[in-house]
């Protein structure tokens, strides 16, 4: 399986990037949404302290920034796992039994509606409304890569493969 490897960015790189994003949008409160999008691209989620910084820089109340960040499901306020597993629950996938797949994924990883990310920060399981791949339903996406015609069994072995790949990588680093 092919995994894209992203250079880890240092925290100070990320902070400088946030400053640049805010400047690029002219510190305009009206640009809050594009700013949050760009910040999320940088951090993969929207950390509270960074949102507070954005509010300060735009001179708007942090409660408003929080309101916008929680209104759109696109924005995440919690850090996500290394592998973000998105199960499509749009109409096409739903009628082709996406729910048992979700249940399999969750029980395999000991996750639930409230707890979407494993404590080791490896996996996040979410549902999305439609991935636009209805012809291949039911669909699961892992870090942007689409896996089609899923079944609960296939989903479980997908997780197993990722876990093994991780274990191997860790062993490789240590050995």
């Amino acid at each position, binding site marked *: 399986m092919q995994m894209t490897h992203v250079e880890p960015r240092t*925290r100070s790189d990320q*902070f400088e990037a946030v400053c640049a994003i805010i400047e690029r949008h002219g510190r305009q409160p009206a640009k809050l949404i594009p700013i949050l999008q760009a910040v999320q691209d940088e951090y993969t989620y929207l950390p509270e302290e*960074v949102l507070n*910084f954005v*509010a300060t820089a735009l001179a708007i*109340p942090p*409660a408003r920034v929080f309101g916008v960040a929680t209104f759109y*499901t696109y924005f995440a306020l919690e850090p996500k796992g290394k592998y973000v597993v998105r199960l499509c629950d749009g109409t096409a996938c739903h009628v082709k039994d996406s729910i048992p797949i979700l249940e399999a994924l969750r029980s395999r990883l000991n996750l639930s509606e409230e707890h979407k990310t494993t404590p080791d920060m490896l996996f996040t399981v979410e549902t999305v409304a439609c991935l636009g791949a209805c012809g291949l339903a039911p669909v699961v996406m892992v870090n942007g890569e689409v896996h089609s015609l899923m079944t609960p069994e296939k989903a479980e072995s997908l997780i197993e493969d990722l876990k093994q790949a991780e274990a191997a990588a860790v062993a490789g680093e240590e050995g």
Partner: protein
Amino acid sequence: MGKQDTLRIDGRDVAIDAERNLLELVRKAGIELPTFCYHSDLSIYGACRLCLVDIEGRGIQSACSTPPEPGMRLRTNTGELREIRRTTLELLLANHDGSCPTCIKSADCKLQALARRMGVDKVRFKAPTRPAPLDESSPALVRDPNKCVLCGDCVRVCNEIQGVGAIDFAYRGSQAAVVPAFGKQLGDVECVNCGQCAAFCPTGALAPRSETAAIWQALDDPRKKVVAQIAPAVRVALGEAFDQPAASQTTGRIVAALKAIGFDAVYDTSFTADLTVIEEGTEFLQRKVNGGILPQFTSCCPAWVKYAEQYYPDLLPNLSTCKSPQQMFGSLARQVLPRILDTAPEDLVVVSIMPCTAKKYEAQRSEFSQDGRRDVDAVMTTQELARMIQEAGLDFSSLEPESLDMPFGFHTGAGVIFGNSGGVSEAVLRFAVEKITGKPAGQVDFHEVRGEGGLREASLTVDGTEVRIAIVHGLANAKLVADQVRAGTAPYDLIEVMTCPGGCISGAGQPVAHNGHTRQDRARSLYEADKSLPLHRSQDNPFIDRCYQEHLGAVGGTVAHRLLHTHYHGRKRLESEALPLSEGNGDGKIQVKVCAGTACFLRGSQKLLHALLGYVEEHSLQNMVDVRANFCSEQCAAGPTVIIGDKVLQHCTLERVRDVLDAELANHQ
């Protein structure tokens, strides 16, 4: 002028004047269309869908968001409209936890009243709610999210009137809620405790915090001497809770009620308001004569003080150093009353009765405690007093009025008008004019500072000295003026700021106003109280004179300063973590925190941070130095602030940071 435009409401012609929307017209026609989310002082939200009307040719529309057009024909009371309204109310009730008998808002709840009026007798829907925890973190308010109907009134008051924005809508759909930033508790954010959100909240989702239990407990304790101070605005509003005509004056009955409840002595905050006038007026004249820092802002409103500390730390030297009348009373009481009442200092319990929720916060500020004991032990609102009177079973209207206790019961009219916006300015003028001219002034009333506008100006020339005054209420207005002061363009000497609309008479602790002219009635009543008193200038109060002779020494002197003045400091808006900018958890490294709070941010802390991160990298100090951005180090007046280890560096430059950091590094090794 042409013929007056009209439209037809329920078959009657109604003239269109300056009404902005159909709702105003319908109400002018004497029809009380129900609303939840409409307030004439706020922007129009059109969310509650209760003010629906049927417009011929257009169908059903919300009246609050439809402008009147000549010739429109509308109906307000069809079967269909009644059915829709009932269903809407049912839906609102379905989202509400319905714990009405135990709700503090029960008697004033708009949701309850409308449900009754609209004949809702059952709720067919059930919301799948999980109870949200109560938020009791604020010294002023209690938030019960389970009672929120999402009308957004509080959000708009806080944003539009107060310019704070401490609460806002968050999440969506069935999860939607009104919350402080990041779902924190109200006590951990920038809320200034003004309570106006609670005054506008139609249900009990936001309500003043009650302290009556602690007060009853003190009253029950035979060793305690419990004394009360009554703020000016309370006396013109309490009667409303007992169906007395709006704004009737009730001072004598309040005293009688408090004595019947068990208070040992009852005094008047107007006495210390007189004292405030003398101290603050003297401070003002000194600044004016000696070229001190002007304009001088008033400091008697604690919500404004917290706002200034959070948003204008650079202007804190402009705030009068005078304590508010409530806190002046507190320190004076501790100093003087044990002897007068023949009690041990620790057995004296000082209770304030205030129109205000922010006073609850003020009384617990650390500046106002000595040796761990608060100067003012408990603060109850006018509403809480009404409940205590009801609980005690007293028939308020038939109480025989009693007089206030001396010496702190004696007050002049200047101390009474403090409750109105413009009142402090007028009281100070009554003092200052006499001081400037050196002879007793004939003039008592200064009509130029009275009025209702949220931002008023007045200027008068006394013996060639010009005094320019701005009077504001609502913090959004205060912001406009403070921005001018910051920019150096404010043409004023004195700026009076009250947070609540119209001043303390509309404080959030007052009985819920049931009509649009309550505020005007109360204001008028305070000016009448002034008229009916024998003295109108604070400096004429003989007990104040005596107080200086016996306890305080010279006006503005050392003792007066210790007891009657205070100081302010920059204050962070949110309780929040610093943002780590170095890798790892920082253990064993030198901690460097660069403030990214607003004041420091504006002074260039971001550039400093950038340069510092560059320096750390350039000299490969990543393993030794842990850099974080924090949000306000509460040293705002001297920013940019950088904290290295336990050293706080003010007015920081990169050179300073480098020097101190290098020294720390040398130590560290």
